[in-house]
């Protein structure tokens, strides 16, 4: 038990975990795809919708003002969680995907030109590859790729060689969703800055598991999705340095992102509103605020320590299984993700058999096909754990993996 926290009690805040689905007990080890929300945040959404809903901003009436206050309170919590300098630097998006695309359109189309180079890593999620491919096509820039090493980490030396004065932007993942690898992004950011490239970090898999300090990292843009941090789907945050956000092109046009509109001249609003056109996902933002309060109360460091315990336990058990191979670095360099292959069995067959035992893991390329190509595998079976998981769930995972091996023996 980490820090005397009673994890069995904590687990009760997540009703789905001990729920039966179609009469079958679920063992939820798919947190990397989407994590579960604490009941406090679920109830907050429900109460908001029952008693407090109204559109926000510009409303003179009490309901609207209260909703605006609850909405903006989340922005303050987000600012604290990321240690942004101001709330203006925290833009609400639909998710990390929109956040990264916002940078590609708002920053990329304005500042990246023909012949420029964009560096991405070979470990990226598709959402940190495709927007840059599309941008390159629009503006005539080219994409360079930082290779991965056999141990599932990035080749920093190769990265340094790729950097040059044509490099205008470096897009890199903080924690790999496919392997769990924690990249030393501060080093990558510093090196990018040495050639004056801006940096875009995909922090989707990081925020739930470690303290993020955007000022300390000196990162230019940092994108997350709430649903990977015990919050709701439909919401993300893009952190951007105010100085950059101010000089970027706007992205979506519409209400709230303007000061005034006439057909002759339209004045843009200041950040963050400049990038928040239209009615935002109010209920999701308010729900996420409650999630962040929950995390603050439980303590991110306690959650991380518990996840490390689970990772070590699971790694020990799985490493002992012959014919099961873990892809990725050792436990000291990763979050609680175990990505594996089973000799002679396609990962989707693993997934189906595990599912028949109620074990919910993800199989496939995890939207990171370049990693699969790198390791010359079609896919992996990935178990991803959260602080609310328990050893018995890992035991069930192992038992089900044994059944896979028996069936395919």
């Amino acid at each position, binding site marked *: 038990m980490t820090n005397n926290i009673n994890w069995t009690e904590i687990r009760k805040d997540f009703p789905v975990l001990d729920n039966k689905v179609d009469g079958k007990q679920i063992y939820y080890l798919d947190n990397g795809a989407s994590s579960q929300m604490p009941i406090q945040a679920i109830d907050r959404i429900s109460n908001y919708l029952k008693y407090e809903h109204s559109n926000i*901003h*510009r*409303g*003179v009436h009490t309901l609207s*003002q209260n909703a605006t206050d609850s909405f903006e309170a989340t922005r303050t919590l987000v600012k604290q969680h990321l240690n942004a300098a101001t709330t*203006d630097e925290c833009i609400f998006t639909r998710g990390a995907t929109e956040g990264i695309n916002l940078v590609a359109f708002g920053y990329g189309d304005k500042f990246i030109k023909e012949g420029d180079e964009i560096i991405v890593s070979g470990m990226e999620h598709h959402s940190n590859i495709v927007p840059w491919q599309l941008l390159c096509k629009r503006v005539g820039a080219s994409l360079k790729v930082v290779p991965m090493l056999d141990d599932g980490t990035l080749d920093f030396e190769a990265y340094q060689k790729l950097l040059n004065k044509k490099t205008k932007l470096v897009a890199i993942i903080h924690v790999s969703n496919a392997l769990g690898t924690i990249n030393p992004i501060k080093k990558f950011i510093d090196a990018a800055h040495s050639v004056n490239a801006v940096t875009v970090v995909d922090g989707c898999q990081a925020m739930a598991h470690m303290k993020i300090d955007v000022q300390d990292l000196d990162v230019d843009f940092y994108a997350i999705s709430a649903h990977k941090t015990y919050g709701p789907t439909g919401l993300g945050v893009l952190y951007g340095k105010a100085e950059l956000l*101010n000089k970027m092109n*706007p992205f979506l*046009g519409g209400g709230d992102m303007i*000061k*005034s509109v006439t057909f002759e*001249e*339209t*004045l*843009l*609003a*200041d*950040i963050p509103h*400049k990038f928040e056109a239209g009615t935002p996902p109010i209920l999701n933002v308010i729900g996420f605020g409650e999630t962040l309060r929950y995390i603050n109360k439980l303590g991110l460091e306690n959650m991380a320590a518990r996840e490390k315990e689970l990772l070590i336990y699971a790694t020990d058990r799985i490493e002992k299984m012959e014919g099961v191979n873990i892809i990725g670095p050792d436990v000291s360099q990763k979050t609680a993700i175990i990505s594996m292959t089973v000799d002679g069995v396609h990962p989707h067959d693993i997934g189906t058999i595990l599912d028949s035992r109620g074990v919910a893991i993800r199989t496939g390329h995890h939207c990171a096909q370049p990693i699969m190509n790198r390791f010359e595998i079609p896919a992996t079976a990935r178990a991803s754990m959260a602080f609310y998981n328990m050893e018995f769930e890992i035991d069930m995972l192992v038992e089900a993996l044994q059944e896979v091996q028996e069936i395919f023996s």
Partner: protein
Amino acid sequence: MSDMRVLYQEVILEHNKKPRNFGKLEPCTHHAHGHNPLCGDTYTIYAVVNEDTIQSIMFEGDGCAISKASASMMTSRAKGKKVKDVEELIEAFREMMTVEADRTDGPALELSPENEKNMRHLQVFEGVAKLPSRIKCAILPWHALSSALKGESESSTEGDNDEWETI
């Protein structure tokens, strides 16, 4: 007295109906345009400053009763005053308007006796400070005056980003 009567004091309604110093002042030494993004209303403040004194001051624009009365009373108070006294008054007015937000932020400003008196007159806006959605209305002309005195030409009740981007 109902809440609304506290907010819409006779003085405010009267200034709203018959705003003082309303119109354009040309030529002038200082002027600034103030914008409230919450409603889209804008005011322009014009002033002639000479020997550190606001010799004359007028305002133009359209907005709610609160903002118009605020502009009217502000210009009445500022006319003929030393710039530094007006700056103090701006500070005091802003403080009154945000007092709900950060009451714990330390002691109130030490005002000159003159400004103490001015503030007693401006007390009619205290009701506004309790209505977050309307605080910006009251502050709008003061912001614009403050910008004008600083030699800036645009101001907004939101933040200090002076460059206004257009499409």
